């Protein structure tokens, strides 16, 4: 008979072989020759970790105890795989689109990258799966124990379990934490699992074939034996049948290790299509010979034999040591693969959702200043692996390994299935909120702990027997296995029913009552409509961090080569030359997804948040900022408007003030000018009047003085007339008498008035061209002409003075050109001002108001009068208003 030590030797050889397979797979993958490692068959075989030692050994025990009910555990997952098109496909698509690392990450990511939900699901998974890991350790110890003879002292279950745990931890750390990105496939582990999947199904089929054909005498004889056995009668409870089928279907989706291989390690969505029939086929083969083995064990083995070990004890009892050793390796494979993947899944969750956030939180300065984040995350994951396996071993030691294997499996199922409402709700219902998910999970978790987990630890250990029968504090409706008076129900069904019902009710009710945050709503839309839109989730509307800082951080997590490759790709996609891309929101989103593949969505979000201005920029904040900005912009717009208005008012005031000041200055100047002008004649009038009054003057003297007084009085009158005239014109008063006249007639009148006796001034006119009709006030226009002609007569200093009067049709103007010395340009500007007189006032005989009056008249007539500098002599131009000039051009009059 194969001894204990011999079996240990075989196991060690097998483990060494698995190490080799894993190494070879890693190596091939590293060389890029991983084509067949990514095939749908490897994917399907990796799903086989659903079949743990609980299946391998426990299914036979289950069948020996409860007949065909064990089939529900495999029919449920087969249903899920058959329905892959509408559920698994979506789950895998979401997992790839969002770079989900674990089931906790899925829930956290869906509900606004919530750290809280990540922690809840992680705790739930650790509490639910730890007993399951303990179960695997127990199965290894128990199966070795079968081979231990009476003399084998090494057959201590505790030490076997311990060494198994240590070995599995080593293997898992070695191949499970090679790369940080949990989305990358763990080729070594997956390959080892695939090999183990073949070993275990081969072992079970071999034992089954041996039982049916060698021991049972063929299929029909075997069926007859079944009908003659203690489990011959079909007495299945309908509730348990349906309930367990649904429960195991849900467990396939919710078990962290199944999520790991189904979603996280999925390399290609199309692999699901193959797995949809290949995995049910695998399950069919795994359960095909369970009943025959159970029946044969019950028939042949002595009463009291542990039915959980029939797979081993039956070949052993028949002397088939080789078959038994193979069966042992099958069981060992089942246990080992489950432990490895479950540990990786749990360690990823613990590390990403508990350790790293705590560590980041503890380091206030953030990830920029910290050391090697990558190393730290890896260490945290390795420690988590050790921690998870340590917990499993601890549970195994504390529980004493006494409970039947199957019941622990169901306890774990009901525990992890608490995630189902949040998962399905998150995938198909956009109204599901974070608060709803948290409420459902917490309530479901609590009910499961109370009604199932704690009672399962052992009678009277966690919950006193009195509480079990009478309820806590005598509250009978809270009895763990008879909640709300539901007595007589199967304990597993009871716990599953109440925990899931209360969980779902809380989830839906709180979701309906609460309002999701912006990130939640965005993620909800991304998850529910994953097939409709492929855009990234929102979150980063501004990139305060520069690309270099982000690269430094990304290198610490992803490794420098990969991080640089990602940045270079992004830069190339943006059309930039260098290695660093612009920090656009799209780039930050993409980077966050890359990081999420390594450390989980919530942590990646927080880390990027620390980069971009040291704090997480949530959409809420962005919206708040946008609101604030809009308000500030509106306010500052109003301010600007006001200040512009004030500016304008101030400018108008300044202008008005300047005008007033100028007017006042003008007025002062005008008054002093007027007084001066009035004073000169008044002084002579007064002087001569006094001389006359004193008498004693010769008559000719009297006459001369009286003439002077008369002249001066006349000058005063003219001055006052001019002043009045100017005042009327400036005030815009006085009526204009507009008529159609011929220009030459107006000139004739003006010449007659200004030069009653032409004297020395020679006139040069072209009367033919002057014969144009214009519309104007002829008296006022003649006044202007008189002024200009009089000025020419007075001021022209040529030896033979002459005045040319020329009609210029083009601008529509009359030029008065004399042949004098002209007026300096700088004085030309001031001659139209009041009281301005050139050099010799004596010659003027006027008060210097003439040109000022001319200007006013022409302005009122709509034309202008100006001095043309630079011409020979003095040239004044009288521009007629445009319409009058146009008239003149259109209608020349023959004279």
């Amino acid at each position, binding site marked *: 008979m194969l001894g204990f030590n011999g079996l240990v030797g075989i196991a060690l050889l097998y483990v060494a072989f698995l190490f080799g397979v894993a190494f070879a797979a890693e190596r091939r993958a590293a060389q890029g020759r991983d084509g067949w490692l990514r095939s749908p068959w490897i994917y399907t075989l990796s799903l086989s970790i659903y079949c743990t030692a609980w299946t391998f050994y426990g299914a036979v025990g289950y069948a020996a105890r409860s007949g065909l009910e064990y089939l529900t555990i495999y029919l449920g997952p087969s249903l899920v795989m058959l329905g892959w*098109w509408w559920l698994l496909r979506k789950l895998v698509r979401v997992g790839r689109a969002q770079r989900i690392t674990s089931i906790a990450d899925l829930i956290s990511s869906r509900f606004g990258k919530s750290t809280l939900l990540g922690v809840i699901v992680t705790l739930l998974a650790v509490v639910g799966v730890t007993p399951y890991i303990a179960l695997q350790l127990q199965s290894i110890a128990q199966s070795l124990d079968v081979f231990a003879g009476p003399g084998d002292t090494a057959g201590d279950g505790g030490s076997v379990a311990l060494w198994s745990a240590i070995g599995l931890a080593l293997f898992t750390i070695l191949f499970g934490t090679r790369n940080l990105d949990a989305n990358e496939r763990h080729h070594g582990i997956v390959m080892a699992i695939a090999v183990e999947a073949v070993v275990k199904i081969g072992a079970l089929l071999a034992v089954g074939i041996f039982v049916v054909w060698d021991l049972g005498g063929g299929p029909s004889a075997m069926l007859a034996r079944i009908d003659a056995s203690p489990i011959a009668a*079909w007495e299945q409870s309908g509730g348990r049948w*349906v309930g367990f089928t649904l429960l195991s279907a849900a467990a396939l989706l919710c078990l962290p290790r199944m999520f790991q291989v189904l979603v996280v390690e999925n390399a290609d969505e*199309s692999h699901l*299509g193959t797995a*949809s029939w290949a995995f049910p086929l695998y399950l069919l083969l795994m359960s095909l010979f369970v009943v025959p083995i159970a029946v044969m064990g019950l028939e042949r083995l002595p009463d009291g034999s542990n039915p959980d070990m029939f797979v081993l004890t039956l070949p052993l009892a028949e002397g088939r040591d080789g078959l038994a050793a193979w069966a042992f390796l099958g069981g060992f494979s089942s246990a080992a693969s489950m432990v490895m993947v479950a540990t990786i899944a749990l360690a990823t969750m613990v590390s990403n959702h508990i350790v790293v956030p705590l560590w980041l939180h503890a380091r206030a300065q953030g990830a920029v200043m910290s050391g090697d984040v990558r190393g730290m995350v890896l260490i945290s994951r390795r420690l988590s692996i050790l921690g998870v396996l340590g917990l499993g071993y601890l549970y195994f030691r504390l529980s004493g390994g006494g409970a039947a294997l199957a019941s622990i499996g169901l306890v774990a199922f009901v525990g992890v299935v608490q995630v189902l409402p949040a998962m399905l709700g998150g995938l198909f219902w956009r109204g599901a909120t974070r608060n709803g998910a948290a409420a459902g999970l917490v309530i479901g978790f609590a009910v499961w702990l109370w009604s199932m987990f704690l009672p399962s630890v052992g009678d009277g250990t966690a919950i006193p027997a009195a509480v079990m029968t009478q309820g806590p504090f005598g509250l009978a409706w809270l009895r763990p296995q008879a909640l709300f008076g539901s007595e007589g129900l199967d304990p597993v069904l009871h716990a599953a029913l109440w925990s899931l019902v209360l969980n779902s009710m809380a989830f839906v009710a709180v979701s309906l009552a609460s309002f999701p945050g912006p990130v939640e709503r965005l993620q909800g839309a991304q998850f529910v409509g994953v097939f409709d839109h492929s855009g990234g989730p929102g979150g980063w509307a501004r990139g305060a961090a520069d690309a270099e800082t982000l690269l430094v951080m990304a290198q610490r997590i992803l490794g420098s080569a990969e991080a640089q490759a990602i940045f270079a790709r992004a830069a190339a996609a943006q059309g930039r030359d260098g290695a660093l891309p612009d920090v656009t929101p799209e780039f930050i989103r993409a980077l966050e997804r890359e990081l999420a593949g390594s450390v989980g969505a919530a942590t990646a979000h927080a880390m990027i948040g620390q980069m971009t201005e040291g704090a997480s920029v949530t959409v809420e904040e962005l919206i708040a900022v946008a609101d604030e900005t809009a308000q500030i912009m509106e306010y500052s717009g109003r301010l600007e408007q006001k200040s512009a208005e004030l500016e304008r008012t101030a400018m108008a005031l300044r202008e008005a003030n300047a005008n007033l000041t100028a007017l006042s200055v003008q007025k002062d100047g005008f008054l002093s000018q007027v007084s001066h002008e009035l004073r000169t004649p008044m002084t002579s009038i007064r002087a001569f009047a006094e001389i006359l009054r004193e008498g004693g003057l010769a008559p000719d003297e009297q006459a001369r003085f009286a003439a002077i007084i008369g002249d001066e009085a006349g000058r005063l009158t003219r001055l006052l007339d001019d002043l009045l005239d100017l005042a009327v014109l400036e005030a815009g008063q006085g009526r204009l008498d507009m008529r159609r006249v011929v220009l030459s007639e107006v000139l004739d009148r003006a010449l007659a008035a200004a030069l009653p006796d032409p004297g020395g001034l020679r006139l040069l006119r072209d009367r033919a061209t002057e014969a144009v009709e214009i519309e104007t006030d002829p008296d006022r226009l003649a006044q202007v002409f008189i002024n200009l002609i009089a000025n020419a007569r007075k001021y022209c200093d040529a030896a033979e003075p002459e005045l040319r009067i020329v009609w210029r049709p083009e601008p529509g103007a009359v030029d008065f050109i004399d042949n004098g010395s002209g007026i300096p340009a700088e004085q030309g500007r001031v001659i139209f001002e009041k009281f301005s007189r050139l050099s010799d006032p004596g010659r003027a005989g006027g008060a210097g108001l003439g040109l000022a009056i001319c200007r006013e008249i022409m302005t009122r007539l709509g034309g202008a009068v100006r001095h043309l500098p630079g011409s020979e002599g003095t040239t004044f131009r009288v521009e007629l208003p445009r319409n009058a000039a146009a008239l003149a051009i259109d209608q020349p009059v023959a004279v």
Partner: protein
Amino acid sequence: MPLPGGEDTRPGRRPIFLARASYRRRRLRDAALLAPLAAGFLWALPLLWPRGDTPASRVLVYLFATWALSVLIAVLLARALRRAARAEES
């Protein structure tokens, strides 16, 4: 008649052809949705059989037979769905 060497692009032909193909794809998806429900019904059916009188072997054979049948249907469905997805892409 299609032109030699060319595709038949006459109106009236293509739409019908396309409509029929996409119609098939829709029904295929319906079948994919219904498959787990049908299997679930088949596997719950033995609950309607009289307890105690029905031999376990009959239930066992029935369950494994339907299980194998559902695997066969899943093979056909997966293959058809893959072909449909490929047709949709091109």
